[in-house]
């Protein structure tokens, strides 16, 4: 399975160098060829399992509680101003 690396990298927001594009195309194609082995199995009447242990969604009351440690959180920000995260221009 020859994988076209560029559109996938775009979806994943991953910048790749030319060498990486070539190397990954090769390596990922080999892995996908290996994954193609799954075609040998008959799963016509099999349901998918996304979670091995039966669990269901947990909800809680939509109540706002104050954030105790805003400063600790903001301390990790690459660029910030007034408890807001600063990023390059989004809208032209």
């Amino acid at each position, binding site marked *: 399975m020859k994988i076209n690396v560029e559109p*996938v990298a775009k979806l*994943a927001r991953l910048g790749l160098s030319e060498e990486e594009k070539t190397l990954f195309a090769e390596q*990922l194609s080999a892995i996908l060829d290996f994954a193609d082995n799954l075609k040998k199995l008959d799963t016509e009447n099999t349901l*998918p399992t996304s979670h091995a242990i039966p*669990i269901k969604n947990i909800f809680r009351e939509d109540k706002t509680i104050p954030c105790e440690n805003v400063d600790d959180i903001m*301390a990790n920000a690459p660029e910030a101003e007034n408890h807001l995260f600063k990023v390059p221009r989004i809208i032209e």
Partner: protein
Amino acid sequence: MHTKTAHELHRLLTDKKISSVELTEAVFDRIEKVEDKVKAFVTLTREEALHQAKTADERIGSRHNVTPLTGIPIAIKDNICTSGTLTTCASKILLNYIPPYDATVVSKLKQAGAVIVGKTNMDEFAMGSSTENSGLHPTHNPWDTAVVPGGSSGGSAAAVAAREAILATGSDTGGSIRQPASFCGVVGLKPTYGRVSRYGLVAFASSLDQIGPLTKDVTDSAIMMNLVSGYDPKDSTSVDLPVPDYRKALIDDVKKVKIGVIKDLLKEGIDPDVKNAVKAAADKLADLGAEMIEVSLPSFDYAVATYYLIAPAEASSNLARYDGVKFGYRTKGSKDLLSMYYNTRREGFGPEVKRRIMLGTYALSAGYYDAYYLKALKVRTLIKQDFEKAFGKCDVLISPTAPTVAFKIGEKVSDPLSMYLSDIATIPVNLAGLPAISIPCGFNLPAGRQDRGLPIGLQIIGKAFAEEIILRVAFTYEQNSEWHKKSAPVS
């Protein structure tokens, strides 16, 4: 004293024969002696550790609320959040990240009075089987520093084996606790999915990840399980079931226990030394009164392919948050948001992480979702069903933990697929959400070597929430063998 187990040290501490401060200093002396050869750690927290040790000594002195881990030096894998202490996941993209909160497991260990000595090295974002994918440096196996410690919890396994910590925590998504335990000759346990809270564990594959203990013996494993297990409302996948006293499961008796030997994991492709060690372990268990049954789980042939579609798919979603916006690394000089994303992730992630994000994105994308991701989820059901059939006849299942002993550093880095195949025995367990433990069961016998060779691990698998039976079988085997008494030669 750094060579003793937590349960031995607990006795010495409560009998006032040693203090936690002395013990912690002994551990740091040991770290100073061997760490440049092992490189198990990313961050050492000596000052905080000595402070915690002092508090532990006061607590032990007061005899109030003393737990089996009070005053015991422990290492934490660096993908588990420790408030105020660097948590990097061994990635350049988190090299400067200081979590504003403790993982639930860390809170529990701190409440128990454990002394945290540092954060251990790992494959970046837990993606790997050798710790060579660390964005910082590889870790070396204390049994032979030219070989890998396994991964992704290689730092934790090596730290315990090198006596740089009395015990450690790791995480396991496809074998990342068990395989390094096997390679480093220590005990590694992956609990049932949902048994231990994932709150504060940096997510790799949310339906597979679990935190678990890496210890010198089975008793210490049960001790940690008692302290870290349990329902956590902060983890929506945490299961609300009572936690038994796992130490009560440590009975030296396997009479009438039905043990299924997985024949699919003892065929070609498995190292002959590994096969022999596991067969000898099976014979030993039979001598001790267990009933050995041969079982076949044919879907195992497809487990690695299944995992390498599901785990990367989940990872591609979980790792989307590393975008340079709110925390972690951000590339310099971006003129627009999109190029900030591309460059931050290009510069911050290592090659294996990029490979898996791409694989996952591809498997989930329109036109490929059914053939890859959905198909893998269906095969996951077949694997679950094979386990259910086997557990219809058996109480536990056994197999080698890994197909080989630890390989040389650099041997498999350029062949991702060959690296993936080293998880062949551990992966099916994660896909089915079951508990499993790896215990030392021998060493290989390399031709022409004077020293004893490299460790081999025996994997024991149980039904969901049946940690007690796997601990019992593991304990029985351990008490009737000598492997756990051997020490790694690094000095």
